[in-house]
């Protein structure tokens, strides 16, 4: 069994208990994906699997056999920053930096969801086009906790980068 991580083929672990998170961090030394709670309650381990944001801590590595995993390390090219990463710096969308890779990966997944019209808890009209208002982004990013309190900067960075193409 194998999976693709940031474009490279990787063997699934021998121990079925190994989470995708531990595979990334301990076996592949891709420590950009963070372990905040290991119980699906903080979002720090958010990665993209086949483009969808998921929690690496609640994913057994064997479950993603044959699928493509993108982590923060695979978001931009080598020595380059994704515009969203630049915006996080500009808007001071973090303090300690521990939840940050998860926030960024989550925002990427969120933009894709909104782009294909997935509604959210705060969407007033389920039949209407999705507009990424501030409140919509806040709700859609609520699975990513931040304890330093960088919420405003995070939302500002996302709005400036990913919500620009949709009416506000």
């Amino acid at each position: 069994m194998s999976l693709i991580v940031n474009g490279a083929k990787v063997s699934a672990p021998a121990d079925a208990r190994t989470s995708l998170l531990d595979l990334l961090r301990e076996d592949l030394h891709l420590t950009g994906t963070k372990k905040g709670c290991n119980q699906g309650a903080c979002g720090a381990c958010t990665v993209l699997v086949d483009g969808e944001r998921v929690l690496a801590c609640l994913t057994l590595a064997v479950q993603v056999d044959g699928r493509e995993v993108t982590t923060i390390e695979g978001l931009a090219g080598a020595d380059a920053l994704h515009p969203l990463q630049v915006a996080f710096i500009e808007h001071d969308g973090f303090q300690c930096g521990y939840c940050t890779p998860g926030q960024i990966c989550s925002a990427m997944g969120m933009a894709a969801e909104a782009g294909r019209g997935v509604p959210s808890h705060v969407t007033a009209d389920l039949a209407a086009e999705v507009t990424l208002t501030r409140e919509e982004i806040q709700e859609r990013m609520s699975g990513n906790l931040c304890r330093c309190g960088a919420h405003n900067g995070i939302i500002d960075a996302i709005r400036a980068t990913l919500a620009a193409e949709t009416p506000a």
Partner: protein
Amino acid sequence: MSIVDNAKQVAQGLVQSAMERLVPLAPDSWIPGGVPDPLIARKHGTIGTPVSRLDGALKVTGTAAFSAEYRFENMLYAALAYATIARGRIAAIDSAAAEAAPGVVLVMTHRNAPRMATPPAFGSSPTGVGPADLPVLQDDRIHWNGQPIACVLAETQEQADHAATLLQITYEVEAATTSLADAKAKGIEQGIFMGHPLLNEVGDAEAAFAAAPHKIDQIYRTPRHNHNPIEPHAATMAWNGDTLTIHDASQMVTQQAQTLADVFGLETEQVRLTSPYVGGGFGSKGLWDHQIIGAAAARLSGRPVRIALSREGVYRVVGGRSLTEQRVALGARADGTLEALIHTGLSVMTPHNNMPEPFILGSQAAYASPNILLKVEVTRMHTLANTFMRAPGEAVGTFALESAIDELAEQLGIDPVELRLRNEPEKDPVNGRPFSSRHIAEAWRSGADRFGWADRPAPGTRQQGEWRIGLGCATGTYPYYRMPGAEARITLSRDGEDVRAKVEVAAAEMGMGTATTTAMVAAERLGLAIEQVEVAYGDSTIPGAIMAGGSQQTAAIGAAVIAAHGELVGELLKLAGNDSPLAGLSAQEVGCDDGALAALADPARRERYASILTRAQRDAITVTKAGSMPLETMHWSMHSHSALFCEVAVNTVTGETRVRRFLGSFDCGRILNPKTAASQFRGGIIMGLGMALMEETQFDERSGRIMNPSLAEYHVPVHLDVPEIDVIWTDIPDPHTPMGAHGVGEIGITGVAAAVANAIYNATGRRVRDLPITLDKLL
């Protein structure tokens, strides 16, 4: 906490008290900051401009290495087993199954752990930062429900975690005090904090209160809280002979290394602790049992160890903020001026630590009153040792005081902002010292204007659909501290004409922006561009001791950098010698500007660093210097201040509260980096919103066990809970502090819970006096 340790604390307190009697009487010029630093007055360099974090790229790419991301060859993974009783002893441990489990290398319990000294508890010595006066894994005693009692090392984390579940432990249970009522019945004592009794008396407050024409007298309660940094506590470590290298997550790098050295009977130099990145701390990233256990297990196994606490493990091992029950009694005249201010009450700690939650600290300099009584008493329960959490004392104390002020304003029919301004003190109400810099009235006025405070409705009168809307305000004071012991090492080096400076400080960066601000301060002093300055920190081999606590790190670093800079100028002048245009000038007559030393009186008289070093045939020059003794804190009354405004909506159907707007107007001296300071303010405010509305550590009084050790059941604010938070500041420098700055890390949370509670009152007419204000309290 033993009697001896208490005596030590009291003795330290006496020495401090003597200093505190003498220092206020000394002339200003004898005191650090007494002759204002000329650099405070003029803005130059990048000071006061928004600078993005220098470690930003590392953090947004996930390449900043946190403690659990270091690796050693042949490293083992640790898992802990925790006691499930509150008090007693371990009768038996059957570890056969665990030892036989796949991948297991070691099961360590009190039976086979190396002999270690008890870590000196926090406050019992200058460098002691142990969590409690308790030995770690040295005997069969259980002191709290959740105490780590065994450590399993295995080749993988999965193997270690599984094996830890196979340990069979039987206990002899002893009676434990795990309910507040029991604890109170067993005794209440005066709280002593950092060597001082938490007791302030001015006049006869009870008599004045009894005689006052207008009174508020209420009890306010706050529950236990946990810090919940998103990075769980972890350390990765290896022994090389008798030398320990530990990559830790630490707010107090040097002190933790020293305490570990004390535990293992080593010299200071034999422990190297690094902590360049800390994934949030808020008071929690100190020394707890796990680092000691990890180091012991590494020693016993002869292999490097990673010990990363599970989220539950953090709740079992790392203490949080204790609960409080506070009485605030205010006696006032009809015009609102206070005749009596009484703020007393109870907090809880353990038999083996000394941390009464000092909730009166924020009441000491808040309001003028001829009669003041402030007192914290404590009772003891058999629990995990509680500890500092963001604005210890002030965060919960201001909930009581500022709610009571709001209640008084309501009773008297005086606008709550106006009531506060009427009670603005001219000097410190408790110790009589002059304020070094206090512009809270200006913060109130600018905040009220910007927020639209004048439009505040009468309580319970504004509704939009299902939502009742209300505005509230509160103020906070947080003391300016500067702890002694900080040093800075500056190395100025030359590569051809290029000059660079390396500034090393034994500080910690948890996201406050310390690394960036230090570079800004050093660059300004040195007359270099910020790109020419490298800041090193988070390493116990760096001289001096600094702590990321008490909102004092920036001041401590600043004083050390200023001192080292002065030393550097002197050394450069010596190197420059008589062939320099600067010849004959003293260090005091020279400043730094654009990569050169320049005469202050005649900046054209100058010589470039590169030129001085080249002529002296030197590639580099290094100086190390300690900051001045922080006597200024005994000479003036020094505080950060806030005026907070909050708008809430409370749902009439469900009782749910949403914070719709929040404004923090701050008076915190010169703001060095508006970008990172704003984030500190906002971060504190948001933690305060959590405290106001949702945060509570559920402590089961039957078992002494924390029942919500999880980020799913301990609620912290999520994105949708957090409105856009407006922050403004006076930016008036304090002439008596390094760079004119005050701390900004803890003033943010101070007063927030009261601002929310007061807004909820304004929306609904309901006063809630126990936190958190959950929806059931508003139905």
